């Protein structure tokens, strides 16, 4: 208790760390939330995404998102398989939020050169993956407003930690 008190007094006097500027935060902040907060302005359609996918994604994820070997995940299909003995978890069958698709592609893909795609390109390949999964049409315009509104097939597929201990705890 005494230590905590002493510490808070000391810490308020010793400023370790320096205030972060708005510019610095803008440079690093790439978080995208399910309600669309954090999405940059931009737009794209599946039709526009085809060329980008062919040039920057197909090498690893295969021509139509089938995946390759065990290394390169499949991005398409599996809807209806989650209750089967061999569930296929993909963007289409498993992911609850369309914003996560945009976020994953922008922050981590293409694997060798992440964060080199422009927002419009990310909207376009996101649209393509959603289209291949039968979620939107080829001409549907994905932008910072429409993306968070896309309802994913498995949107309601998640429940909180349900392990038996959670029941004992109550």
């Amino acid at each position, binding site marked *: 208790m005494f230590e905590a008190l002493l510490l808070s007094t000391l810490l308020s006097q010793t400023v370790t760390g320096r205030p972060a500027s708005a510019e610095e935060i803008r440079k690093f902040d790439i978080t995208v939330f399910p309600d669309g907060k954090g999405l940059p302005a931009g737009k794209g359609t599946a039709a526009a995404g085809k060329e980008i996918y062919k040039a920057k994604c197909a090498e690893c994820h295969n021509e139509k998102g089938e995946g390759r070997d065990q290394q390169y995940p499949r991005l398409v299909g599996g809807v209806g398989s989650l209750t089967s003995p061999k569930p296929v978890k993909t963007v289409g069958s498993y992911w609850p939020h369309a914003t996560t698709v945009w976020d994953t592609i922008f922050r981590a893909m293409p694997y060798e050169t992440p*964060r080199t795609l422009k927002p419009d390109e990310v909207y376009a390949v996101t649209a393509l993956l959603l289209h291949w999964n039968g979620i939107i049409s080829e001409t549907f315009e994905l932008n910072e407003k429409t993306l968070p509104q896309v309802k994913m097939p498995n949107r309601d597929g998640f429940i909180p*930690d349900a*392990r038996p201990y959670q029941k004992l705890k109550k």
Partner: protein
Amino acid sequence: MTSNKRRRLLALCASFGLASCAKQESTTPKSPGAGLSMRPYGDRSPFEKTLRGARESTKSIGVGSSRTPLHELYGTITPSSLHFERHHAGVPVIDPAQHRLLIHGMVDAPVSFSMDDLRRLPSITRPYFIECSGNGGGELAGNAGADASRSHGLLSNSEWTGVKLSTLLSAAKMQSGASWVIAEGADACRMARSIPIPKAMDDALIVYAQNGEAIRPEQGYPLRLLLPGWEGNASIKWLHRLHVASEPAMSNQETAHYTDLHPTGKASIFSFEMEASSVITRPSGSQKLAGAGFHEISGLAWSGRGKVAKVEVSTDGGKAWQAAVLDEPVMSKAVVRFRLPWQWDGQATVILSRCVDETGYVQPTREQILADRGPNSTYHYNGIKSWKVEADGSVKNV
């Protein structure tokens, strides 16, 4: 000197880069070894060969894992060089002089810390385990590992030194309504996980040291998040950003992965705590008992909910159970070594261990876990592990 011994001494000399030492040895076998300054950063004896295990297929690109060889180690602290690894975009090279930790979002005072800033703050040092929630996934799926590395090697235990996350969040002055903090790594894929504020303000640490020296690149050099007792994936490595928010980001890793799919088609999400578990490491798969008679049964136990209270061992396939000795000190959310003397009668048998933690939680059987969440839940498996001791002394997975 036998030729075998001589060969080994030559190898030792060679590893020290000492040709003359090898020559000398034939005339003066008792001559001193290499001098103090020969290995300013020490290494183990050239006779010791224990290595991390990795699947060949995942070595080529930076996505994959390597396992701690639990069955070849002693005590509780995992040597830093043998800590398990799990990366999603390889191991980045980060200059600590350039590295910053940014805290922003729902805070009144966004702040950026350098490594020097962080080391100036009050530090805390404690042992904690880190376990990947995929540990034991093969056991659940029915492809049990042939040895303790393959069955449980995504578990390691280190002494960590760092700063309490609560100290940093207080400095940034969190706003009311803040309930999650999104932690992000500086690796190429900018791995991100959302952490509930109660955990962040409880025992979460931002650590810069592991077993007395700077943390290893594979463990997040120069800075990582450490969430005691929680699934390893959430303890973001190469930590460079903390985004305080009112909701989780629902990042790739916390939705598409690390969620437990039930037979109903629903999946549980944010199952953070690693429940009580244990594994016998001696005798264990791939080892061979030299013959009937005395053997010590020894293994590791841990719980993400606190201290291990008791470990019971059975040497007759689960009919009778005896309490094992727990080597002190038993620390919360850290690995403990358990031991039981055993007189082996030379007959084939099955040995197993069961951990009970201080909350009274008892490590379940595989059957209980299957009944609870089915064979496709992939993560958070902590079933009782058994090993078959054959009459010839060889130990196999069952």
